[in-house]
């Protein structure tokens, strides 16, 4: 079989994205759950927080800064993005989750909700 060399024209080489799991503190007090995520380099424009059912997902991207004419000698924080998901317990008020980002730390507040109280259902005669 003759070896035919095929070249892919204009193939873009995409370096694999380095997505890290951010360091997180999770704590609660009597009224709320608090989640603090460390994501240096992320601001509110590059942040995406979603809640679906009881899954809270955080996704942030970092734009790496280039220094042409320089040679990199150290690269200890080279995240392209941060991603983490949390499963919230049932007794939370998902309508009133608050999220603020300051100095690269996302602070989220999830209020606790009272468990559904038992109530009587009226029965009508048909």
């Amino acid at each position: 079989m003759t070896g035919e060399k095929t070249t892919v024209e204009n193939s873009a080489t995409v370096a694999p994205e380095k997505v890290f799991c951010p360091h997180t503190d999770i704590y609660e007090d009597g009224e709320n759950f608090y989640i603090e995520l460390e994501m240096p380099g992320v601001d509110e424009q590059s942040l995406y927080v979603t809640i679906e059912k009881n899954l809270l997902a955080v996704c942030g991207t970092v734009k790496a800064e280039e220094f042409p004419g320089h040679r990199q000698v150290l690269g200890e924080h080279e995240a392209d993005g941060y991603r983490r998901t949390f499963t919230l317990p049932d007794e939370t008020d998902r309508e009133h989750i608050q999220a603020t980002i300051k100095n690269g730390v996302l602070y989220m507040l999830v209020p606790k909700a009272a468990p559904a109280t038992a109530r009587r259902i009226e029965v009508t005669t048909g």
Partner: protein
Amino acid sequence: MLLQVQERAWNPWHELERMEAEIGRIFGDMGMSGAPAFPALNAWTGEEDVVVTAGMPGMEPKDIEISVVDKTLTIKGERGGASETDGRTYHRRERSLGRFVRKLDLPYRIEASSVSARFANGVLKVTLPRAEDDRPRKIAIEATAN
């Protein structure tokens, strides 16, 4: 007849021991605690200046101290924990806190008065321009008639 005993037997581990000693010397003053140093640093060197970025989320510029002495950059500060932790039940505690010091060796001396530092989104960026008298100078060669 006495067998001649070799005085220096070939040690099969000789190369490995030598490598281990070298590596031990290089990593000697690095802590073997396994915890990454805070803050994480990125550094770029150029002909004219050195740029260093440090990931310091949750810090305020007033809590960070930057100093340059000779060819060493020192970044130090303190990460304060929460002021009141009473009544809190922690489920996960991954953020580190406390005092930190990091030193970085620079390739040349720095013009201390022109160092600039910016802090945005938890990332500190320090630009250190090269000292005027540490730049390579061309030496003129005098030709003498022989």
